[in-house]
């Protein structure tokens, strides 16, 4: 399988990365090189093989359902590029 220029632009938008025409054209070649490389997986018969979901055969530990942390508004906002009072601020999303 390979990608064309329109697919590159669609995927870039899905990934929320702005691309110029020039970027998209370069990426088309690079992505196709990588997709060409992974193509060899199709020669393996994987019928009846379970997909791996965990490398270690273990039961995932679960925490007790209790509040252990919180009230750290200042810490959480400390690295925000823009904030106001106790909120992150973003460009207007509702007209």
């Amino acid at each position, binding site marked *: 399988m390979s990608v064309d220029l329109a*697919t590159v632009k669609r995927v870039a938008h899905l990934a929320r990365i702005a691309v110029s025409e020039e970027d998209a054209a370069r*990426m088309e070649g*690079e992505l196709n090189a990588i997709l060409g490389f*992974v193509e060899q997986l199709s020669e393996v018969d*994987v019928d009846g093989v379970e997909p791996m979901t965990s490398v270690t055969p273990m039961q995932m*530990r679960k925490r007790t359902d209790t509040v252990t942390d919180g009230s750290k508004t200042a810490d959480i906002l400390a690295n*925000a590029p823009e904030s106001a009072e106790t909120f992150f601020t973003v460009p207007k*999303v509702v007209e």
Partner: protein
Amino acid sequence: MTDLTRLTIAEARDEMGKGAFSSVELTEAYLKAIDAANAAINAYVTVTADKALDMAKASDARRAAGTAGALEGIPLGIKDLYATEGVHTQACSHVLDGFEPRYESTVTANLWADGAVMLGKLNMDEFAMGSSNETSYYGPVINPWRAEGSDARLVPGGSSGGSAAAVAAWLCAGATATDTGGSIRQPAAFTGTVGIKPTYGRCSRWGIAAFASSLDQAGPIARDVRDAAILLKSMASVDDKDTTSVDLPVPDYEAALGGSVKGLKIGIPREYRMDGMPAEIDALWQQGIAWLKDAGAEIVDIELPHTKYALPAYYIVAPAEASSNLARYDGVRYGLRMPGKDIVDMYEQTRAAGFGQEVKRRIMIGTYVLSAGYYDAYYLRAQKLRTLIKRDFELAFDAGVDAILTPATPSSAFAVGDESLASDPVKMYLNDVFTVTVNMAGLPGIAVPAGLDPKGLPLGLQLIGRPFEEETLFRTAHVIEQAAGRFAPKRWW
């Protein structure tokens, strides 16, 4: 006085225990060495000199009070991927500009609890994506090693290139690193240092910027096998904040050194003899086999038939997980924000400006293979391949193999700015061909220096072990180290 930076962790620990010098003196020696070398090597992206001296003073006070820990007063470098409270933590990416977390990663917290001192944050490939340390926003790291009779700049490998170079150039006593496809073992091999990627789950991933969560694992890079054992003992722990960390006691890895490998069954996988493998890599491998045989190990040929599919499967699984993990860098909560005409444009402009080419490439591949209609063909198939890769190892271990010996890398260190690698991302990916299988199967792997190539550059061997049997790897790597000797670069910086 002898140069304190030349001491291993074990030597410095023992000397400080006898009162030969203080942690402040040792820390000052390292800070001076960094000051003199970093312009040439570029291993550190930030040096925390004041914090280091404060930590060293506190360490000396603890020692005087009789409460010295296992790493008391030992100055370490920390890969920029680890969150360190109030200190530059950017995964060497522009997108995390100015980020100083309000929390400490579990692994680094464990090191400080054992008395270690932080010298600063180490350069790396952006978000740990790279095999040459050239994708860093902070520029490439220069390998302290040079080919005989040449002053050409070589890469230290990646992604933990800053960690490996700092350890090899005596700019820290040891360093933290991380390994998703070979990012500890390949740079260790390129710099004549020892690096271990422990079993998945041995170290907590909490507070380490995520790249591919099912593959990422923390580990140390050190001057020798003993130091790597000492560091891993302190780094490893079970952690409530990482549900994939395992609740198994952490052994005293150092105690495993010096043990005999007599009767140990060492597997030699035929599939690792790649077409076009350089003669010096094969010779090194044969030498490693001979050393272990001489030490009484039993050498057996094994088959790992799905080896060749590990790298292509990795280049589906790792980008897929990365595309999800890196979705959080959106210009809202931390780091860089670029202006946009609306919120989506703000996201897109921020991510376009913040991520480098290699990171974008992998996010795009990951987004594509997870997109509607392609999931089964790519991601699901790759996860099935992963089951088969792991099964290959299990069959070998079930047949009694204790550890597997392979080369660590297909070549020695290459030049900074290598044209053929820069123009072909897949060619760069092939650097991880011997190491990536280990991440795909969640196994422990150690790279240990074993010799020099004809250009005088270090080469490493890799040992792969059963899950949570790092002690066998340390014991066996120590036998190789004793036979091979130590390797250090000639100082030019």
